[in-house]
């Protein structure tokens, strides 16, 4: 179980793995995630289910090497097994025919929006997908998303691909064009989601964001993932990860993401030593 049956390098730092996990593929829905514990001594880390295939019994995960545990995950080759894999977790995206939906992905968030784009389109929405990254090399999933979106807009910070600028610039333009938008779904780095919410709020466009706080058990038992939504404490792992972006206290989220930053560096150094400076 939990065997990695395929592994591709998407770019220097981002990898795609396809894992044999029939019980998860069977139950997975867009917007859900898994907890991965690559080896017995590693952390429990949440990763979004970027795709699933019920027939083949597989799930796809896109991960970026950001710390010790993702580094350890990367050390497992195709054919190897992940020690523990738990899912599907979290409340699925609410998929219905809204009309016109703008789905925005930034960074690895680009991979995470794929199942939602697919499902929203399938149910009859006009889906405009906007993706953005720092530069061309960091743009992922472009082909896959262009197939399932009605329109795909691309931005890069440096202009090396698509429009030079941010996803929020595209969002502003779509709104300015007078097109009626029924829903915005934004998944990516916190500043990106926050800006998208600021853009849509004056126009009263409902905006859903997918939050990524620190998680531990990811089953609602520890409260490490608590976020402030509409003045109430919510556990992102079970109540979310998707929330009404206009209700989210982003400042609180940012503050709660940083407590272990210095220790993560130590853990990464430790892992790099073990893996032989790879």
């Amino acid at each position: 179980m939990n065997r990695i049956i395929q592994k591709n390098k998407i770019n220097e730092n981002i990898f795609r793995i396809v894992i044999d996990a029939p019980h998860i593929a069977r139950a997975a829905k867009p917007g859900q995630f898994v907890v991965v514990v690559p080896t017995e001594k590693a952390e429990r880390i949440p990763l979004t289910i970027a795709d699933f295939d019920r027939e083949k019994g597989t799930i796809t995960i896109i991960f970026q090497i950001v710390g010790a545990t993702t580094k350890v995950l990367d050390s497992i080759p195709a054919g190897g097994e992940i020690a523990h894999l738990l899912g599907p977790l979290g409340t699925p995206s609410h998929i219905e025919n809204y009309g016109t939906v703008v789905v925005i992905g930034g960074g690895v968030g680009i991979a995470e929006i794929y199942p939602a784009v697919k499902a929203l389109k399938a149910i009859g929405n006009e889906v405009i997908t906007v993706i953005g990254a720092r530069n061309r090399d960091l743009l992922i999933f472009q082909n896959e998303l262009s197939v399932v979106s009605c329109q795909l807009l691309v931005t890069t910070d440096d202009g090396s691909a698509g429009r030079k600028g941010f996803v929020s610039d595209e969002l502003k333009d779509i709104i300015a064009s007078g097109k009626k938008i029924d829903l915005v779904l934004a998944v990516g780095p916190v500043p990106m989601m926050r800006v998208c919410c600021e853009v849509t709020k004056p126009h009263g466009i409902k905006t859903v964001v997918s939050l990524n706080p620190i998680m531990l058990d990811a089953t609602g038992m520890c409260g490490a993932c608590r976020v402030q939504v509409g003045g109430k404490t919510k556990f992102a792992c079970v109540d979310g990860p998707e929330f009404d972006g206009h209700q989210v206290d982003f400042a609180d989220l940012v503050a709660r993401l940083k407590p272990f930053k210095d220790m993560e560096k130590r853990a990464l150094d430790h892992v790099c030593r073990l893996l032989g400076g790879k």
Partner: protein
Amino acid sequence: MAEKKIRLHMAERSVEERVKDFNEVPQGYTPEQAIEEAKRCIQCKNPLCIKGCPVEVNIPVFIKLVAEGKFAEAAEKIKETNALPAICGRVCPQEEQCEKECILGKRGESIAIGNLERFVADWARKKPSPAGHKATLLSQRERVAIVGSGPAGLTCAGDLARMGYQVTIFESLHVTGGVLTYGIPEFRLPKAIVNLEIEYVKSLGVEIKTDMLVGNVYTIQELLKEYKAVFIGSGAGLPKFMNIPGENLDGVYSANEYLFRINMMKAWQFPEYLTPIKIGKRVAVVGGGNVAMDSARVSLRMGAEEVYIFYRRTQEEMPARIEEIKRAIEEGIIFKILTLPVKYHANASGWVSEAECRQMELGEPDASGRRRPVEIPNSDFRIQIDTVVVAIGNLPNPLIPQNTPALKTEKWGGVIITEEGLTSIPGVYAGGDIVRGAATVISAMGDGKRAAKAIAALLD
């Protein structure tokens, strides 16, 4: 023979030594001590102690066997009704159960039933008798699914397996044992003992599937298609917060997160184990139960210099076991009683730095019979701290009830069951903390036993 009024206490490691590591504090009886203590039992004709035990261990008989030096037989006797004696001997609140009923307690100290149970279980563990408790594996009967591998699930599974049923436990975490593993720290309940008990349950033919969150992976209704009955022992995993300003600051943990990081993810062995935890020099633990005592004592062992317990009533009302309160005090935990935190303040980098507390006094008794804490106006004061652990209790795990509309629950979240442990769904039973709210290991085991009996009767 003159009756000895005072019980024999177990040797304990010195405070200086024990706060530096996670090893056990009490050292257990020697065989001679066990015999000496067992001889204090007057073998009542009508023993009240048995009635005080939620799983009705035949206490006088096992104690008599100990007094005669027949330790293996004593172990057999206990195991007839209690599958996890090495655990119960360590963590049961005997002072409120069997020992409370003991007649010797009227004129002196009750007999140390817990210490004797612990001795017998440890003795048997080290010298497994050849006759042992081998599973009398009958023909393989129907399949039963158990949700959760805490004491409720393990007991229900073990009993059903002994009766010949094919049992599968679904556990959401990657490690088995429930609170025994992720909650209660090593120095109070060594994990080697928990693992041995789990191995024993497995040896009876029970299959344990970890990383299986019931409700999400399979619903209860789906399980009922594959299994003839289901037992839900999913525990009280939902941590309560006080919802006061500053509770979301960095450095404020729920006790579950704190203990989970340390006990289960082994954050104390960071970076060999990759899960981090940050504990400062001055830790405040809020609450007065076992969870609070454990969090406080863990903090010391993680290197904190000053550890406070904030409790809004007095030591007398604390729900923690007396023995653990005593050890916490010995170890230098500072009890701030009649103290209610109302707000946490942060330093410039957003880390908790101060607790603002209100002084309380005791008023009239409330529904629980304990005197109600009342706020004293204009009594707020501040204490410098850099870590807070919120240990004010847990509620039943809401995930399965949320995913199972037909499952009836109380307003506070507890799953509603009949005398036999049956829920509102035919074939689905429940027990332990998911029914009672945060309770005890032994009551969870009692529930598991009772449900096993009912399930067997249903399938017979």
